[in-house]
């Protein structure tokens, strides 16, 4: 790869949230040292020219009969697509359609317009994307390194995790103790409050946001924004069938999960059933 790969960053139908997320990265200067940004809709770059580039970043969704920079949007992206070495579909809208339209490679979970060209595409979903996720992919491309992908062409290094992994509320998940309100330090958000962490692929609780936090850590449920099903309705309420979560953690059968969680709930954990700050040493002694 070139010393400074050339990037064209095009905004399709979206909110520019992924741009804002990425360019607020504290170490953003290294991006400009290592890459040449030929075009970006929000930054001072030259006017868009349809030309060859190493990486085409498409932020936002495709939409028919939508005008962008004097071109038909879908035709513009097709032309740029053909001249680019690699394409990054950036954000959930570009990956699956998300809020605004159709994704490049997927329309929700179905095959999309550019599915046939999947060998050129790397998908980074998220609403918005985490700046580190794009940095990782760009650096790997610049260094000409192989990027292992999952079945949705998402980099495994990021999306093999669930956002549940590393959550500070995992102890409450283990014992089936739910948070009664949002914003509390205690309690799991999976059982009632709508958290999709156990079945959402992302590294949000491993690589933290703004280097300090994640939604579930702060007391807000994971909205599942890296998945094709995003956005669902009722994001603050767990979908249940007869009181049983409609979506269960990945990798286990419903029967196994119900058995385990029923047993966990039957074994009352005194320590976690009260505010942590009220736990005294006596509890620990008793447990010994």
């Amino acid at each position, binding site marked *: 790869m070139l010393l400074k790969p050339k990037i064209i960053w095009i905004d399709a139908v979206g909110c520019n949230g992924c741009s804002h997320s990425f360019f607020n990265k504290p170490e953003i200067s290294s991006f400009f040292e290592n890459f040449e940004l030929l075009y970006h809709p929000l930054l001072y770059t030259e006017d868009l020219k349809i030309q060859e580039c190493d990486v085409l970043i498409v932020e936002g969704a495709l939409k028919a009969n939508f005008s962008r920079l004097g071109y038909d949007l879908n035709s513009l992206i097709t032309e740029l697509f053909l001249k680019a070495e690699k394409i990054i579909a950036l954000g959930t809208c570009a990956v699956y359609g998300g809020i605004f339209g159709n994704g490049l490679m997927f329309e929700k979970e179905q095959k999309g317009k550019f599915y046939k060209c999947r060998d050129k595409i790397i998908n980074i979903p998220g609403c918005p994307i985490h700046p580190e996720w794009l940095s990782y992919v760009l650096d790997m491309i610049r260094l000409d390194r192989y990027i292992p992908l999952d079945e949705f062409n998402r980099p495994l290094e990021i999306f093999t995790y669930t956002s549940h992994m590393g959550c500070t509320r995992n102890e409450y998940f283990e014992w089936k103790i739910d948070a009664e309100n949002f914003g509390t330090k205690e309690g799991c958000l999976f059982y009632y409050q709508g958290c999709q962490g156990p079945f959402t692929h992302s590294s949000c609780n491993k690589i933290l946001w703004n280097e300090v936090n994640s939604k579930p850590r702060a007391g807000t449920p994971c909205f599942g924004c890296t998945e094709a099903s995003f956005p669902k309705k009722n994001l603050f309420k767990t979908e*249940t*069938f*007869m*009181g*049983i979560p*409609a979506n269960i953690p990945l990798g286990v059968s*419903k*029967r196994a999960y*119900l*058995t385990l969680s*029923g*047993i966990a*709930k*039957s*074994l*009352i954990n005194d320590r976690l059933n009260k505010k942590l700050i009220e736990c005294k040493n006596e509890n620990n002694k008793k447990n010994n």
Partner: protein
Amino acid sequence: MSKEEKKEQIMQTALSLFAKQGFYSTTIADIAREMGMSVGNMYNYFPSKESLAKELLIYTSKKFGDEIRKINEMDISSKEKIKKIVELYFKKAVEEPELVDYFMRVYLSNKEIFNNGCEGMLCVSAFVTEIMIFFEEGVRKKELKNQDFFAAFGLFMGYIGGLAFLNRENILGKPLEEYIEPVSENIYNALKA
């Protein structure tokens, strides 16, 4: 005979004695006598009467759960499954009345025996899990109404348990089997979407 088979035999014997005489009036010596074993040998299989009572609960729950699992895995409607579960339960109540007796007269009436190690779902999880799966799939297929689990569970199990109890007390006017149809119908009407 393997140790597991022997344990099962002891459990069967204990089951009928517990069901007939109650937990407290039955001694390990009674069970040993019925088995033709020495009391000392009995303790090689179960360290106490309480542990025997708990294992018995796990064992029967698993047996019953396995049967419901077969129904859950059938490719039939929730309505038909309800009938199959009622049928299964009533059949057991007639053929193995000590099973229902044990559950009602020992487990539900002497919770203090089960306080340490059988709390909540611990010993009945095999059975309750299958009922959960039955309900969950019924709602997912839009055949059953989405409601609180225990509201539905109580309606289903309380109802058929009650009928089995009345049957055991010889209060029902007709054989229990004849109630399969109307009881299943009532349960379905109460749970359907």
